[in-house]
C-alpha cells in the first residue's frame, strides 16, 4: 500500500471525530487526499468497516448490515417524542426555518423544550436571523446531524426531491397564511 494512503488511513482511524479533507491533509502531509480516500473507500467496500463521507467529513464506521451483532441493547440511542421528530424533519427539509414556520407546518405551537432537546442532541443549531419583520431566529441542522443519520449531505434526505417537486417544501406564502389564518389556532403548548 502506498505510504500516503497508509497515512490517510491512520489519520482517519485515529481521529475521534470525522475529518475534512483539509484536516486530513494537516496530519498526513503532502499528497492527494481525495485520491487516497477513493482508494481506501474501495479497499473497505464489503468489509466489516467502511469509510464514509458525511457532509464533507470522513470517518470509519461498522457496516450497517452488522447492526444486529453489535447492538447492545434494544434501546434507541435517544428516544425522540413525536413533536421532536417532526420538528427535526421540518428543520432538516426546510432549513433555515423560523420557529413560527415550524409551528405553521405543525399546526400547533412547539414547546420550548422541543428545540432544546434537538439542540442538546447536537442535531439542530441556530442559524442567524431572517432579515424582515421581527427578525426571527432561524434554525438549521448540524454536521453532527448528517453524521448521526448517515447522510452524505442534505441532498440525501429521504424523498427530498419528490417533496420539492410536489411543492411541499416551498415557503408558505403569505397569502396562504392569511387565507388560513383561522387554521392557525392558538393551542396550549403541546404535550411532549
Amino acid at each position, binding site marked *: 500500500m502506498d505510504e500516503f494512503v497508509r497515512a490517510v488511513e491512520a*489519520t482517519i*482511524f*485515529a*481521529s*475521534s471525530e470525522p475529518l475534512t479533507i483539509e484536516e486530513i491533509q494537516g*496530519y498526513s502531509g503532502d499528497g492527494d487526499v481525495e485520491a487516497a480516500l477513493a482508494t481506501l473507500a474501495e479497499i473497505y467496500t464489503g468489509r466489516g468497516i467502511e469509510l464514509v463521507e458525511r457532509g464533507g467529513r470522513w*470517518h*470509519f*464506521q*461498522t*457496516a*450497517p448490515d452488522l*447492526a444486529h451483532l*453489535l*447492538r447492545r441493547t434494544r434501546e*434507541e*440511542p435517544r428516544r*425522540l417524542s*413525536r*413533536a421532536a*421528530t*417532526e420538528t*427535526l*424533519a*421540518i428543520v*432538516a*427539509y426546510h432549513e433555515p426555518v423560523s420557529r413560527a414556520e415550524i409551528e405553521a*407546518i*405543525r*399546526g*400547533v405551537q412547539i414547546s420550548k423544550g422541543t428545540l432544546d432537546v434537538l439542540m442538546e442532541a447536537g442535531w439542530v443549531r441556530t442559524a442567524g436571523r431572517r432579515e424582515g419583520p421581527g427578525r426571527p431566529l432561524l434554525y438549521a441542522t448540524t454536521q453532527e446531524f448528517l*453524521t*448521526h*443519520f*448517515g*447522510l452524505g449531505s442534505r441532498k440525501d*434526505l*429521504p*424523498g427530498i426531491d419528490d*417533496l420539492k417537486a*410536489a*411543492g*411541499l417544501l416551498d415557503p408558505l406564502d403569505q*397569502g*396562504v397564511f392569511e*387565507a*388560513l389564518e*383561522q*387554521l392557525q*389556532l*392558538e*393551542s*396550549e403548548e*403541546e*404535550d411532549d
Partner: protein
Amino acid sequence: MGVDALDFSAGSEELTLNLDGWEGPLDLLLNLARAQKVDLTQISILQLVDQYTDYIASARALKLEIAADYLVMAAWLAYLKSCLLLPKDPEQDPSPEEVALRLQMRLLRLDAMREAGARLLGRDRIGRDVFVRGLPEGLRLVRKSAWQVNSFELFSAYGAVKARTQPAMHVVHMRSVMTLDDAIERVGKMIGMAIDWMEIGQFLPDSDDPAFRRSALASSFVAALELARRGRLDLRQDEPFAPLQVRAA
C-alpha cells in the same frame, strides 16, 4: 388541554380516538383524512369536514371538555363546507375551492414531514445501527508559539533599559522664597515702628518677582499669626476677605 383521555370509536371508520393524543386540530384533521384510506391528494374535503364535525359532536355527546381551538376549527370547517355547497360567488376571493385546496396542501405538508421524520429515525444511525471506532487514539495538536519581535523593538528595549538604569541626577531649581524665620523677624521689627493699624500687605518687601511676593505674603501671614500667638501683636479683619490688619499689642 384538559380533555380526559378516552378511547372511543368514531362511526364506521373504527378509528380509535383519544383526544389527549392529538396535537391540535390539524393533527386530528390529518388523522381523519388518512381514515378515508385514499391518497391524501384525493381526499374529499366535504367528507373530511363531516368527519371532523361528527368527531367533535360525539366527543361532546360524551360530555368531554373540548378545547376551544378544536371548536373554532369545527366552526371554520362548517363555514368552508357551506361556501363549497352554495352557488359560486365569482367575486369571492379566495374562492372556497382554493381555500379547500390550501387546506389540503397543509395536510399534505404535515403528512410529508411526519413521514420524513419516521424515515429519518429509521436510517442507519450511529450508536444504534452503525458504530464508530470504540478506541480512537485521538489526534493531537501541539501548539507552538512563534514569537514575534522586530529589530526596532529589540533596540528600543535596550535603549529603555539603559535609560532606566542611568544614574539619575536630580536638579532642584533655586526658588526665591521668604522663609518663615525671615518673615517673623521682618514683621516683628516693622510692627515695633508702627503706631496704628496697618494692612499686612504693607509689610511686604518690594520685588518684581511675583513668585517671591506670593511667598513673602504667605510667610508674613503665618508670621503675623505666630506673633499674635506670642502676644506681640493684634490681628483684625472687618469682614471675610477684607484686608487683614495688624497693630502692636
